[in-house]
């Protein structure tokens, strides 16, 4: 029997479940390696070569190289692991989050200061477009 996934109709959200964790295992473990300063240095001085040391898929490597966090999550990455990449880039959680929403950093900050993204129109996939409901 397939795993029960009642969250699949939640819009704009990837749940890091057992299937995703299996898919993203090497991607996430690569992220963990960036917790060490010497690995961060090696990664920064040659990203492609560093990624090639990991048994990740080509799609995962490309997603990392272009810093497409939505794509990385689709390929099994988990946000707390992926955070090691944007920390390595010197980018805050808030700035990284904004890149996933289609908003500019300033627009995203403004949305948060004014109470955050409203649940209205954002609870079911049928309510929200793929790009997110930023209105």
């Amino acid at each position: 029997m397939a795993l029960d996934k009642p969250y699949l109709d939640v819009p704009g959200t990837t749940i890091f479940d057992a299937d995703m964790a299996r898919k993203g295992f090497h991607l996430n473990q690569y992220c963990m390696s960036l917790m060490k300063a010497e690995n961060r240095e090696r990664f920064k001085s040659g990203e492609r070569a560093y990624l090639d040391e990991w048994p990740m898929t080509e799609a995962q490597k490309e997603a990392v190289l272009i810093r497409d966090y939505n794509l990385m999550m689709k390929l099994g990455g988990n946000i707390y692991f992926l955070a090691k990449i944007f920390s390595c880039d010197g980018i805050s959680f808030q700035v990284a989050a904004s890149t996933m929403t289609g908003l500019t950093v300033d627009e995203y900050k403004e949305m948060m200061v004014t109470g955050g993204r409203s649940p209205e129109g954002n609870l079911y996939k049928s309510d929200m477009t793929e790009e997110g409901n930023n209105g």
Partner: protein
Amino acid sequence: MARLSASAFTSHIPAIGAAIDNGKTAEDYWKPVFSGYEFAKKWVAEQKPDVVILVYNDHASAFDSNLIPTFALGIGEEFQPADEGWGPRPVPNVEGHPQLASHLAQSVIQDEFDLTVFNTLNVDHGLTVPLSLMFGQPDAWPCKVIPLAVNVVLYPPPSGKRCYALGKALRRAVDSFDEDLNVQIWGTGGMSHQLQGPRAGLINKKFDMDFLDRLVKDPESLSQVPHIDYVRYAGSEGIELVMWLIARGAMDEEVEEKHRFYHVPASNTAVGHLILENNPA
């Protein structure tokens, strides 16, 4: 005998730790957040807990994809702040309470909660930010801390029901510990927030208010809320709130609400904070 006297609940947002560590607490953005914890600082200084059981989650700092315990209790002497990518937070090491912690572990395992125990583990912002919010910036934390790490990274985390029941088992364990100790339990994480995907930035004040009300007055029914409701209504990371049910489960059924605070935003997250006391009979 040990006595479980009170509980505190708070978000554990990393940006709050960074604001404290970098001296930004008086800035306009942060001031309203920290003013909400002034009461807690005075209160905890008066209460003088000997030990805090601190329920938190690791954020892929100590546990990676190789090892994911659902519940893990720290029975070691000391825990160091984790390096989360910028070097460890400049906060004191956390002193454990191995005797009480081992007693808790033995008791709850015999009470059918098959948790993991650990001796050495670096604790991340999930544990140290609540300590900073409650105690400020002392040279040493003024009490012992027993870390209780809960998996909320890999879906599914434990259910609210299971968390609430674990809290009750922890309470039975505290009550049966011989040493005369003032014990508190803190629940951390939440409130509504989503850090990922096109829906990042979700905040649900209505959900959070309802959660706070029911946590105080009707935790039994709150513990029945399924995971999907947290994910859908409180955001993918709002599911951390199940950890608050562990702390609430360890309290009396009837509690006195001493303090409540709610603020949006801190970074991507709604900040929630509660202090509850058991009334001695």
